[in-house]
């Protein structure tokens, strides 16, 4: 099953490689991983998406907690939560038919076109992984020039929060 794990960790050199190294050393898989400092610059917040059986996920959370740099951790999937991902897509738009089609699709998915050239559009879009996948699925493969995705960032709903 897919799990989204949120971590607070010391904002120190090497903290990210400890997490990444743990996953490769123990054969856990990472679907995506995002990390950036929080409002407190001594701490980073990481969102990690992984897949595994209940036993594997239990081991992953325990092993992550064991890392000396990890301050706190929650498995967001255990409760209500929100996930968002940012995507930038460069799409071929070299004739009026393609240009109109892409503009329309981007509007339907509530993206915005943030760069335009004579033969391409760059679309910015945020949403869940599924929505971004659906958008890409709606575009003919040959029209996609470049896809950049941030990986998932997640946060608990309501009062649920992860603080040091």
């Amino acid at each position: 099953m897919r799990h989204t794990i949120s971590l607070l960790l010391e904002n120190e050199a090497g903290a990210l490689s400890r997490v990444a190294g743990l996953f490769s050393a123990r054969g856990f898989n990472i679907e995506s991983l995002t990390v950036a400092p929080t409002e407190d610059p001594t701490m980073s917040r990481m969102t990690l998406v992984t897949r595994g059986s209940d036993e594997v996920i239990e081991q992953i959370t325990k092993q992550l907690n064991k890392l000396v740099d990890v301050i706190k951790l929650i498995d967001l999937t255990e409760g209500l939560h929100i996930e968002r991902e940012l995507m930038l897509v460069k799409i071929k738009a070299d004739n009026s038919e393609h240009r109109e089609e892409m503009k329309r699709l981007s509007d339907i998915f509530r993206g915005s076109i943030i760069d335009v050239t004579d033969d391409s559009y760059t679309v910015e879009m945020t949403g869940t992984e599924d929505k971004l996948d659906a958008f890409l699925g709606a575009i003919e493969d040959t029209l996609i020039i470049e896809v950049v995705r941030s990986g998932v960032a997640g946060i608990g709903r309501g009062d649920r929060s992860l603080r040091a």
Partner: protein
Amino acid sequence: MAKEKETLTGAEILVRCLQAENVDFMFGYPGGAVLHIYDALFKQDKVRHILVRHEQAAVHAADGYARATGRPGVVLVTSGPGATNAVTGIATAYMDSIPLVVITGQVPTSLIGNDAFQEVDAVGITRPCVKHNFLVNDVKDLAITIKKAFYIANSGRPGPVVIDVPKDVTANMVEFDYPETIDMRSYKPVVNGHPGQIRKAVDLILAAKRPMIYTGGGVVLGNASEALTGFVHLLQYPITQTLMGLGSFPATDPLFLGMLGMHGTYEANMAMHECDLLIAVGARFDDRVTGDLKKFCPHAKIIHIDVDPASISKNVRVDLPIVGAVEPVLRDLISVIRETGKQPEKEAVNSWWDQINKWRDKDCLNYNRHSEFIKPQYVIEKLWEITHGDAYVTSDVGQHQMFAAQFYKFTKPRRWINSGGLGTMGFGLPAAMGVKLAYPDEQVVCITGEASIQMCIQELSTCKQFDLPLKIINLNNRFMGMVRQWQEMFYDRRYSHTYMDAIPDFVKLAESYGHIGMRIEKPDEVEGALKEMLAMKDRLVFMDFIIDREENVYPMVAAGKGQHEMVLASDREQV
């Protein structure tokens, strides 16, 4: 009034920190990146530096010291090859959860990343085999980093911590201030077990009909021998121990079934297989213990006490986990059992003991006592007798290690010192040096084989320099015995590269290092030779026992088999 602070160099601060941690010995080898530190060491006499002949040995020696004393072992090596040579030692300590603080020199901060002379990413290389590691970029952070390193190494589940110190950091100056205590928001090891879990455990323990206690290195590391012995005696339940746990319950006690696992006793492995309640204490269900997980303890509910939550349900699903240091948890269990006023299921447990005693009657460790060759088991039995079971025994890795574990009946913790998790050949001799430095008046014996001993043989020179009268028992079968045993059993006796036909004359070798060498070739010479060895109190004695070439370690649970599917010595003769 605030104490006036001294301004010192990083190197001086480093040495002051070690003094503040009451470090009496450190093990190391100098080099370019650590010259400032060596200079600071030269100017003081509180921390005694032991110069080894190879950095791997420095780490093993510190490791042996730590295992024997319970205090962190301290290592100092230079950058580049100094650090990479130390890696095997660090990984050895990591696998057995041994507290070490390893200081590696590093090229100056301005050169880091430039492929400078003797530069290696020590923090990167050691990351997967340390509990934690640090690169100190600024001399201002040096003292607090060392404080953290000692705290992390020796709390919770212990382990090695590496501090990588660039050369310029050891030259730069700052006011010295060593914190007395440390609090880390991201590192707070659990000590006490959850009272609710402890009560539930007591219910299971008192209801058991076929209980089994299985304990590991955690009991030794957690200084919980006394509590464990009290717990076992209170219940009168059978107990088995892992290779790493030996000595934390007296092996001479009738409740002890011997070691379990791949080369465990018949009675211990059968009792594991048939028990209805398994009480695991400070053990991690290693594959050498469990055999095939699908066949492991099929009838048992499992209670697991461990200080490391990640050890729980890692390999084997447990029914009742208790996270906490084993010592307080065992004490809590004892007091809750007493509070209930209830007794174990006497009748059921008695018939369980009847069954166990039938398994015991197999006498699975028996061997041919009438052989014309020296049997390795016999040497260790005699050693045990002559040292009254009271020596500190280190070992290398292989058959001799298993024979030592089976035949030297340890009755006290921290006396049996070997590399269990990583299985590092070359560990025994340097580890014995660390033990002997810690306990100069105790008998320290290294049990080894002719293959293992050659992996760190250069340390005979260190022993000479620092006057360490170790006793080395070399069980010489002219084979890498354990590998040969597997080749005999699983590769149709194709002894691929396990025969060493250029073995040195160990007697002359020992003599060339300034020690005493003895060669023993007949069974009836063994006892006298051992006595002679022990009488030479002030000398290192290297005893080369020419033993039976093809003796095997039994019982054996072959890889992939269940614990109850053992090959016994008697099966070999039938083949």
